[in-house]
């Protein structure tokens, strides 16, 4: 029997997947036993959501942008009569895993380890995870390996922490394993706070068991009895699916007392974060789980000695744990075949911004940024010019298109001044102003600074004020030198990762786009025509209907014209407040 599977991750749902699912459910209730209906997580092609897959045996046909009416057609044509709706097909995957079709490139260039089950299984049904080799790694870890052998295997795989810093995972585990304590904890950092990053959410929504299994294996290796998943409250669907999965894992004996009769006890609880970016820092995260203000503290003592509740704790992020079951089942050697000498394996990136195909892509370490943007991402939207990528969000930096042959790994990316970060990649085109980008990220970190370290608290504010002035055309001689000095000081004197990386977006743009800063300061000009205070406003006579709303809203009467005829703006009077753009109902006003 054919099976229709609707992609029901957050991105699918916000594009209208619920309506598509409801339609298919209604069709099914009117045509009983005509097909099976199921759901899956994110397959990664966010730009084609809502996605519906029709699966028959091993053959998979994936349809994109499926509205309820297209869903009806899929039923009447494909499901009932076997006629594939070619014009709506995104790609086809056959039994050997070969991908064909218009969007095949998006999947073909990926190597999927972390996302191995995302978009394939129903994340709410544990049997589907088991059928694809789920919990085999755990059995192996429990019955065929000693704890130190597990750690050795993870060390040999070369896996490094995927949360941003890239610390070798096996080594981290060995520290916690060595600590002597009756009680130890395993913590999973799922507080994905970077604006523009959604890898962890997609894994939690699409394959929650892989994270649970990774945590259980870690607990076995270091001798922990309890685990916490610290998840953003803004991810309600991820939390719901985690709860379902934890319950199912308990019933099957993978969690709880005496796991699979091995004599090993371990359980997991979920802690909802309450919205504080600094809680991505582990010592702050522990404070938050303990119910306090999430402020970081000095290390040492390191979490491996005194972490959560002052007990030895191992903390990794979602993607790191999701790698573990694969490594244990397939072996370290197999994993080490992926990637580069010093950065083994794969990395999941969330690709967004001015790129044609935005979504989730898992590539081998060592893939170039150019391939990520052009081969997987399909190039720049609207045929504009590729300017740069922003990697690592507010802690990261900007990598210009000229050096986009840089490989993504833990050595090459930091050499550009950016960081690998958790994997958010925002593609920028020639309309993006780099000064404004830097200001935007600094505004974010400034707001999120917990206030403990003086330089982070006050230094970021001074930098933000300066950048805001520059984008308004009020920059002064000497501003850039001050920004560099403050940035350096903040990095040197901050306790945690937030402060140590907060100046990165400013420092990298100063390094590669100093001329843009200077154009703002000296010529009072924004080369990207983005900073509102530094551009001219015009009305497109083709689009203007002469409704006069803009003229009524203009605070300085810079707009004039006769009703029902195109209006014009006098840029010598205009104060660039932008009110006309926001008030126009026809999108007739543009900036030059």
């Amino acid at each position, binding site marked *: 029997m054919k099976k229709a599977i609707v992609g029901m991750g957050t991105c699918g749902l916000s594009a209208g997947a619920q309506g598509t699912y409801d339609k298919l459910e209604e069709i099914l209730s009117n045509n009983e036993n005509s097909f099976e209906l199921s759901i899956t997580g994110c397959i990664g092609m966010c730009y084609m959501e809502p996605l519906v897959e029709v699966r028959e045996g091993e053959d998979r046909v994936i349809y994109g942008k499926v509205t309820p009416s297209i869903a009806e057609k899929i039923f009447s044509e494909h499901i009932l009569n076997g006629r594939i709706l070619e014009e709506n097909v995104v790609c086809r995957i056959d039994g050997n895993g070969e991908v064909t079709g218009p969007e095949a490139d998006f999947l073909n260039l990926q190597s999927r380890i972390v996302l191995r089950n995302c978009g394939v299984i129903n994340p709410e049904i544990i049997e589907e995870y088991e059928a694809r080799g789920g919990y085999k790694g755990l059995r192996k870890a429990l019955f065929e390996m000693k704890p130190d052998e597990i750690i050795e295997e993870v060390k040999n795989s070369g896996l490094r922490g995927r949360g941003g810093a890239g610390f070798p995972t096996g080594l981290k585990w060995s520290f916690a394993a060595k600590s002597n304590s009756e009680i130890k904890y395993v913590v999973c950092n799922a507080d994905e706070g970077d604006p523009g990053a959604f890898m962890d959410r997609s894994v939690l929504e699409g394959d929650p068991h892989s994270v649970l299994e990774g945590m259980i294996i870690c607990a076995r290796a270091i001798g922990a009895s309890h685990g916490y998943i610290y998840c953003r409250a803004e991810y309600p669907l991820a939390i719901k699916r985690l709860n379902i999965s934890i319950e199912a894992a308990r019933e099957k004996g993978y969690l709880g007392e005496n796991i699979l009769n091995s004599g090993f006890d371990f359980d997991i609880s979920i802690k909802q974060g309450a919205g504080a970016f600094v809680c991505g820092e582990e010592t702050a995260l522990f404070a938050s789980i303990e119910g306090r203000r*999430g402020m970081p503290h000095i290390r040492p003592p390191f979490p491996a000695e005194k972490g959560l509740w002052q007990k030895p704790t191992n903390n990794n992020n979602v993607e790191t744990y999701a790698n573990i079951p694969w490594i244990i089942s397939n072996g370290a050697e197999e994993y080490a075949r992926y990637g580069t000498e010093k950065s083994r394996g794969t990395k999941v990136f969330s690709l967004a911004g001015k790129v044609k195909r935005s979504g989730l892509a898992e590539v081998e370490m060592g893939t170039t940024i150019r391939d990520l943007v052009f081969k997987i991402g399909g190039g720049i939207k609207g045929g504009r010019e590729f300017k740069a990528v922003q990697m690592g969000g507010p802690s990261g930096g900007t990598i210009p298109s000229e050096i986009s042959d840089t490989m993504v790994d833990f050595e090459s990316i930091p050499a550009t001044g950016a960081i690998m970060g958790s994997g958010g990649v925002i593609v920028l085109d020639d309309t993006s102003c780099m000064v404004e980008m830097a200001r935007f990220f600094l505004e974010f970190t400034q707001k999120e600074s917990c206030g403990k370290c003086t330089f982070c608290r006050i230094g970021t504010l001074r930098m933000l004020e300066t950048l805001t002035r520059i984008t308004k055309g009020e920059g002064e001689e000497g501003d850039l030198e001050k920004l560099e000095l403050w940035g350096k000081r903040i990095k040197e004197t901050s306790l945690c990762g937030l402060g140590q990386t907060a100046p990165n977006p400013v420092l990298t743009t100063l390094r590669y786009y100093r001329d843009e800063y200077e154009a703002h300061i000296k010529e009072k000009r924004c080369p990207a025509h983005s900073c509102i205070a530094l551009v001219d406003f015009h009305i497109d006579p083709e689009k203007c209907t002469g409704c006069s709303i803009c003229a009524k809203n203009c605070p300085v009467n810079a707009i004039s014209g006769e009703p029902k005829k195109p209006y014009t703006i006098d840029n010598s009077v205009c104060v660039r407040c932008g009110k006309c753009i926001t008030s126009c109902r026809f999108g007739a006003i543009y900036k030059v």
Partner: protein
Amino acid sequence: MSEEFTSRLWRYDGTPGELIPLLQSAQDHFGYIPRRAISYISTVTGIAESEIYGVITFYNQFRLKPIGKFIIRVCNGTACHVSGANMLKETIQDELGIEENETTDDGLFTLNTVACLGCCSLAPVVMIGEETYGKQTPASIRKILREYRRREEKGSKKKSLR
């Protein structure tokens, strides 16, 4: 006082780390954290009111004021930012006559911005209540807000405008 919040309070057995879940359940049921909820939590847990207040103000999630019927959340993630999120926010402020974190006089809308809603491919995105509206422009968001108002005045129960 709502049942779930009080039952959570009654069940409190001194387990450390329960403060944030207690505050979350209080906010779930009141829509914000009222003064009296802080007093109750303090009495039951023995944590000083000042300390509870400190925790509330540290986290973005918690509110000390009631909110409107629909929370408008303008996404200010990076992808939305480069696609014009700020312009959308200014349009909404202009249309409703409120600033960020304020509620309209009729209690219908509260305007917030959020770091990232995670549907970057639909940028720029605005959420109104539980509905997500992608690829918005100043003109389209104005239209949607007016439609909400109109339906509210008519007393229509249908929430979605999709």
